């Protein structure tokens, strides 16, 4: 690990701190995150994240595309939750246009977004468990995620970067058996969640590896801007879907799961419970999908009036915000994306202080970051 290695190698357990690099090529940094760790023995005394390896200048690209042309780009940020990204962007532009998607479109958007939330959490669960050394949950999670991706594929032809929504509503009508597919998935899914719980929730090694690891209390969470499951696990009962409902969330009943200690185990439990709640939302939504148009009349060429808008949704990883400034032309003057992973990652340093190197892996996992979104 010559260049990937230690800068200071006097003694391993001596008085000097040892600096090691984790990443950017490391199995557990979920892409190309690089963390410089200052170690005292195996104890972390400081850290610095080096990011930007995947920086593509998405915000700059936005200024050179029309509003519709930019929509597919947002899928490439958090590529494991492309549908949620698309929802946030489309709704933000709709707000800028002072338009609103028709009810049918909103309900279908809600269904797909909740499925996407489940898929994102499943991928997180699998990789997080893998980081902690449990091999099997990954494959179970992939099995269920596959079902969701199949639904996406049937709906819009794409599985990963879906570009499922359009500004103003939907391009595609729901396919014939969408409700049935979603229902079948939801029916199976309850018992599948139980399988993960059987493997992990009560497992004393799992508890030993996650309890009291990476503590972050609610005050720190808010100060550091951490949102989503990280915030809820620290005991703040807050969810953008309840606080400022968007899409069709105001029509459905669901609970906001919260943790008590704000440790890795709590975040695990919160995400597991969120999957259950998402499943409930899906079940409620397919009960009654209103008939009607799926696209608002926004016109082929979008020229939003001058002004600016900030719109944020509860993405699977936290608050996903879009700040769009229009100068009245067909291209946005400025698009700012508030990436939840980027801001949650700030909390890493606080969380890993005093823990062992081994725990760093668990804590990076528990933050549920996607580097495509961190670096944009």
């Amino acid at each position, binding site marked *: 690990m010559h260049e990937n290695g230690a800068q200071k190698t006097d003694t391993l357990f001596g008085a000097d701190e040892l600096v090691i690099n984790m990443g950017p090529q490391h199995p557990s940094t979920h892409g190309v995150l690089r963390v410089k760790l200052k170690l005292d023995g195996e104890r972390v005394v400081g850290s610095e994240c080096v*990011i*930007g390896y995947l*920086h593509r*200048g998405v*915000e*700059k*690209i936005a*200024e*050179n595309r029309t509003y519709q042309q930019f929509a597919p780009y947002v899928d490439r940020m958090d590529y494991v939750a492309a549908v949620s990204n698309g929802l946030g962007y489309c709704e933000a532009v709709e*707000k*800028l*246009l*002072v*338009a*609103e998607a028709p009810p049918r479109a909103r309900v279908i958007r809600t269904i797909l977004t909740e499925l996407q939330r489940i898929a994102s959490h499943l991928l997180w669960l699998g990789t997080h468990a893998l980081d902690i050394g449990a091999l099997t949950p990954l494959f179970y999670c992939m099995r269920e995620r596959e079902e969701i991706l199949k639904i996406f594929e049937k709906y819009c032809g794409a599985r990963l970067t879906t570009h499922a929504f359009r500004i103003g509503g939907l391009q595609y009508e729901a396919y014939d058996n969408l409700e049935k597919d979603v229902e079948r998935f939801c029916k199976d899914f309850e018992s599948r969640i139980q399988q993960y719980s059987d493997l992990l929730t009560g497992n004393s090694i799992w508890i030993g590896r996650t309890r009291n690891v990476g503590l972050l209390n609610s005050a720190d969470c*808010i*100060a*550091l*801007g951490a*949102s989503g499951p990280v915030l809820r696990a620290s005991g*703040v009962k*807050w969810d953008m879907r309840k*606080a*400022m409902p968007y899409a069709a969330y105001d029509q459905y009943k669901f609970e906001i799961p919260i943790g008590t200690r704000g440790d890795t185990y709590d975040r695990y439990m919160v995400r597991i419970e969120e999957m259950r709640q998402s499943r409930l939302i899906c079940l409620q939504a397919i009960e009654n999908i209103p008939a009607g148009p799926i696209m*608002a*009349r*926004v*016109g082929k*060429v*979008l*020229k*939003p*009036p*001058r*002004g*600016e*808008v*900030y719109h*944020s949704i509860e993405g699977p990883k936290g*608050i996903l*915000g879009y*700040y769009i*400034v229009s*100068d*009245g*032309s067909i291209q946005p*003057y*400025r698009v*700012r994306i*508030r990436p939840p992973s*980027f*801001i949650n*990652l*700030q909390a890493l340093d606080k969380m890993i202080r005093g823990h062992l190197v081994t725990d760093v892996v668990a804590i990076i996992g528990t933050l549920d970051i996607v580097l495509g979104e961190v*670096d*944009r």
Partner: protein
Amino acid sequence: MADKSKAPQSPDISQPDVSGSSSASAAGAPPSSPAKGVAPAPLQVPLDNELSRRYRERFGAAILDALEDRKQSIFIVHAAQLLEIARYSRDEEKFDLLEDYTAVDWPRREKRFDLVAQLYSFTHNTRLRLKIPLGVEEQPSTLVPIWPAANWLEREIFDLFGITFLGHPNLKRILLPDEWQGHPLRKDYDILQQDTAWVRENLGIESGQ
């Protein structure tokens, strides 16, 4: 590009006189608006509610303007008093979450940049946007002591816009390599532009495009 048209019926909104003609001026409903035929309500209106009055009372001229754009509150504040306003917002008005902090470049304006902070209050479930017009040479004070979340966000602004924050604990580039020249999100940085020297030196290729 920014001052192509001026909608006839709109009052000139955002205007702290410091900002030039190119800053976001108001527009009425666009031709493609769904509410055709109905006289469109103006999208930007001056804001005069409890909150804005409290802020104005407290900070007087430092609140350059208060307005509402698509029902979202915006305060335009003076950079010199940013820190006090931020502290007041957090402690008194309970805007405890700095949701986002970014900048917009208006190259033709006298004060070239707008810093834009999105605040959120868990207590009142409300949002507030602070806009801080900023000249090229101006250096705003950092918000890290108020909201630690500003740390990376300010680094990102520094990286992509070249705005320096006074008192920031670790102000260096975050997304781009440390030695990179130029600030890509400025409007005069072309989409195809890159630090060719850096690319050649560090990646061993002629061009990153």
